[in-house]
């Protein structure tokens, strides 16, 4: 189990940031990802592996019209 924005999310072996965003259907383009507080650049999403127990923050930077 991992935390995504402080909520529980099922973990599986080989889960990457890209995989997590796809599972959650986080399609918004303008987001910031931090894993255990460390920033993950967009170019690294596919290779950034998430470990069991990690705390992932996916901040959507959208604040309406």
């Amino acid at each position, binding site marked *: 189990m991992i935390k995504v924005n402080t909520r529980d999310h099922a973990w599986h072996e080989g889960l990457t940031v890209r995989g997590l965003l796809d599972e959650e259907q986080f*399609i*918004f*383009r303008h987001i910031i990802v931090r894993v255990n507080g460390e920033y993950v650049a967009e170019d690294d999403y596919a290779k950034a592996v998430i470990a069991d127990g990690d705390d992932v923050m*996916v901040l959507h*930077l959208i*604040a*309406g*019209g």
Partner: protein
Amino acid sequence: METTLKEYTYTPAKLHRGYANKSLYINVGDLSVIEKEVTEFMKEKFVGGKGFDLWYLWNAVTPETKWDSPENEIVMSAGPLGALTQYSGTGKTLVAAISPMTGIPIDSNAGGYFGPLLKLSGWDALELQGKAEKDVVIFIDGNKGVIRFEEGEEYPEDTHLLAEALTEHFAEDEADKVNVAVVCTGSAAKHGYMGMLNFSFYDPRRKTCRYKQAARGGLGTILRDKKIKALVVRFKGVTGNSNDVADLATINKIGIKYHKEMHDLDEKQNRMRTIGTANTVMVMNRYDLLPTRNFQTGGDPETYRIAPEVFVNHFLTQGIHDGCWYGCTMSCAKCADNFLLTSGPYAGSRVTVDGPEYECVAGLGSNLGIFDPQAILEENFYCDTYGIDLISFATGMAFVMECVQRGQITRENLGGLDLRFGNKDAVLELMHMMSRGEGFGKIAGLGIRRLKKIFVEEFGADEKLLNDIGMENKGLEYSEYCHKESLAQQGGFAMTNKGPQHDEAWLIFMDMVNNQIPTFEDKAYALHYYPMFRTWFGLCGLCKLPWNDIVPADNYKTDTPAKVPEHVQNYVDIFNAVTGKSIDKEELVRQSERVYNFQRVFNLRMGHGKRNEDYPPYRSCGPVSAEEYLSRLSLYDGQLREKQGLDPEKMSLDEKIAKTRAYRLDQYEQLMDAVYRRRGWTMDGVPLPEHLREIGMDLPEVLEVVEKHL
């Protein structure tokens, strides 16, 4: 065509550090004109823009004033940063009046050239009071120092004809048209309460007028009630330092850096330059936030038909600068050129349609069950030219359609109009009926609050159900976000000063998706900071979009990326560089807090503004119907388990809906308590005298109002 009724000459004030230091009062009843001094007191307490509007309005009206009382004023002001050309979004006009929808002050804002050109003509604000006997056009020539009143009866009513005619009439030649800006409304504004104001700017590439709208709260209705056909300003000579700023070099430096951000990052971030605010339609659909069929659900499988790419690929002209004021590189005012109208009095004409903005696609599209881009653009055009606030219209007609869906009213009650979800022809026909003042078109524009009363009293509809599904608060219709899973945004809409418009606070992702503000205190902090911060745009004449619809590449490194700290600092630095003052980011919020609390007290003075008016309809908070509950069954059942310790397997659907409702309404009460505490108000929503003293809004007349309610 014109007959001059009166002419007044004046010496245009030269701007200094962002202010003309003069304001213009016009009474259209007797065509009197008064030049007023803008005092240091006004600048200190109210800054400008919306602040000046509210201060003048306060002094013009009494607690007994109604929207159609002669003393009600329409007040307009650009703000001290208005008419800059170095930074994006510096061309807003802020407008205020006592609203026909709500009975309290409404404030609304628009791009276009009017506000900046008014200021450059020597006026920090414009008050319009009284009522004319016949239609009048007010023309201000800021170069010649002339204010002229002309008869307006002979001009067409609808904006796309009226503004073109007036631009042609008042411009000295073709090249001069960019120096002319018109404020007007349309033929539907006199039938109902949701008439809006169009603000023109001339597009020399398309050779036509373009329009932005101060749409909320019935400002256009008031304009027509005063028989003001239009306001026109002409000013030639916009320069890079028209404001005579204190520190031009700083403004230039900040502007250059900002424009580079826009150039480098917009395509990766929100694509404002390509599609404008409608870029979020599919995002809202995915995150269950796109209001669909009167906010019943947050999306629909058909939404792809009205996706941003559909408009970009098939309708919107690309590659032409679309800024609504000089220097705005965000350039988000998109439009569809050569659009062929298929209905109404202008069927067969090809026109330029400004938009669609997000609210248009969501409101006139999904919320009415219409997933047809052609129809949305045609609705958009007719709302604009007829002078209809499309948000109030869309949310209002979504309510009517659900009343039909649930058998609360019949087609016969609507004079034969088949207002079922998805019927675009009926929606367009209703707009034409509103323009003509016929049938249901005579009352459709009164707004949900009054329609509820009519449906209950005359058609026997269920009052409780209508109160649940009618998406209005304080008499104003909600803007287009299905926010029932965000407690913070429920407050962000219903705990506003003027009614549920999202320009005060938009916290849905921060709350619902990012989960950044989980506690009541966190939400209360957000419902203090963001409304105060965003109010400041309205004090200064700024557009909100450049704040956070583009952010610096390294914004992620900051502790508070949602605040976009670098851009906040830009605003502090630009304010100081224009005015020569020395504020910091805390004083920026404090400037807003003074005006925000003043507006709250203004509501009290008008007999409103307490806790009992800050409650949302239940549709805003949770599932009203069985279908809504079932559409999010696992979410709602999960919440019964996790938050209330109940076993949904042992409950009927009605019991689950009832328990969910009781829980959510209790959450909202707790949120109100926390927000009122954070804002320095009593638990009845009244600003405390000590708080007013602390923020510097302890004017005797303000304290006098407050003390009656403690």
